[in-house]
């Protein structure tokens, strides 16, 4: 199972990076979003995928899952949700004001 996860993470990373390297702002945002999804899977996988009861004392199970990566992923999802939505709004506003979503055209200084 870890192997499949590793492949999935690799694919997400590759696609995310490919999108980030493109010119269009919308693709770049989608790329960052895919990249964070890859990271979340990575967090889940590094703690080893195992089955077990919820980590509560009353369960009296033989195996417990590690709660920490899940807490981390939850926090990270919330943060990436917030940042991505802010990025979308900013990109829209920038598109309105600057009249372009091409990163090539957003380079340099006006005084150079």
């Amino acid at each position, binding site marked *: 199972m870890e192997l499949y996860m590793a492949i999935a993470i690799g694919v997400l990373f590759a696609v995310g990076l490919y999108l980030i390297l493109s010119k269009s702002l919308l693709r770049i945002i989608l790329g*960052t979003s895919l990249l964070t999804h890859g990271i979340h899977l990575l967090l889940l996988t590094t703690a080893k995928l195992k089955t077990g009861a919820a980590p509560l004392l009353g369960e009296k199970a033989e195996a417990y899952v590690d709660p920490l990566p899940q807490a981390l992923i939850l926090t990270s999802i919330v*943060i990436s949700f917030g940042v991505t939505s802010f990025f979308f709004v900013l990109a829209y506003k920038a598109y309105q004001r600057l009249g372009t979503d091409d990163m090539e055209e957003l380079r340099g200084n006006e005084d150079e």
Partner: protein
Amino acid sequence: MNNWVVLPLLLPLVTAVILIFLSKKVRLQRGISLVSVLINLAVTVLLVGQISRDGIQTLYMGGWLPPYGIVFVADMFAALLVLITLAAAAASLLFAFRTIGEKREQYYFYPFVQFLLAGVIGSFLTGDLFNLFVCFEVMLISSYALIVLGGTKRQLRETLKYILINILSSTLFVAAMAYLYGAVGTLNMAHLSERVAEAQQGGMLNSIAVMFLIVFALKAGLFLFFWLPGSYSVPPTAVIALFGALLTKVGLYALIRTFSLIFYHDQGFTHSLIGWLAAATMLLGGLGAAAYKDIHRVLNYNVIISVGFIAFGLSVGTREAFDGTVLYLLHDMIAKALLFLLGGMIISAAGSSSLNQMGGLIKTYPAAGWMFFITALALVGIPPLSGFAGKLLIVSGGISATDYWLTGIAVFSSLMVLYSLMNVFIGAFWRDDPMLPAVERKKWPAPVYVSVTALLIIVLGFGLGAEWVYSFAGQAGEVLSNPSLYIDAVLKE
């Protein structure tokens, strides 16, 4: 256990929430935000006093003992940084009161500043890596908002790049954390330090360390600083001063903390890597500072030079160098805030940020001119001023560690600072060009003068009272050079 430790974080957080509801009452917002920062300053002074008496203070959230619970650790290094952060923030706020514009004030400028403070202070005080990430994000998200607030075309354009870089580095941060957790199974910094020591820092942990180095270098502007000069020249002066004083320094703090507490076992590899990155940063920053005729650019490249210099202190890694690093870091935060405020005053007085379009300002603004001169000397490290003690300790640490090349570059970088800032001083204040239109003397509102004067007094006090400041900075350097002090304070109670 000491509940005071969380108060510097809680105060700005609560203040920010209150301020959101008062968004249209500008005067009230000003008052509340300043009072909150001043109260916080008093709290932190008490905290520093406590630490100097009783050693490192910790707080286990909800009574959960480490390594399981969330822990807040205030050692001398963190507490001093919080103190300076608040001083710089108070000055920037005072400066902002009459210069930032009512429009921005109504669109949540003050709440964002408070959230920024909460993030910065949280990053200094937290004792585990994941909380460091969360506080980083709180700080970054408020900085995104602050940098774009106002929505001019340049701001929108530069913010897009700034956000993209920071999202990428945050993603890498989580990835590095995931690998580290997979490798040693904990995220509490003190516990991490023990586990990494047990596991013998080998190839795997070294590559994780390099990932952290990349992440923090991106945030601090160490070598990977290509995003910094553009992003830091678009927001209004008060915001740039806040950014220049705080944001890169949080990255540096994280760098110093991780590489003095967790990854210090293979110094031949990691620390010499940091050393060369620092040298490259100082040289490239120096070139940038010397090359531009635009005040924003010159000052931003000066931020980069000082980041390189502080990282050089970390790379030397002896007790003496750590003392110097702490001293220089504290001085740099205040001096950079002052420099950016004065730079903003020059720009708005001359109506342009290009040095070619100004001159002879010393006649109309003698006070601002001499203040700029003194700040420049302080940053270079001329003896009675604040930069001297830290610089001396770092350089002599570098010589005693026989890093002659890097030390030479570090000393040379001071010359670049001197050259670039004197260029600004001569260009803006001294040079009299009959071709230029005469500048009308502009009356600054009183809070502006209060804020720059207060910062100047701190800069002077730092230099004249170096012995006294050193007694605190030495305590911070002691913990940095001897990680077992930190570990014992957190894990054994």
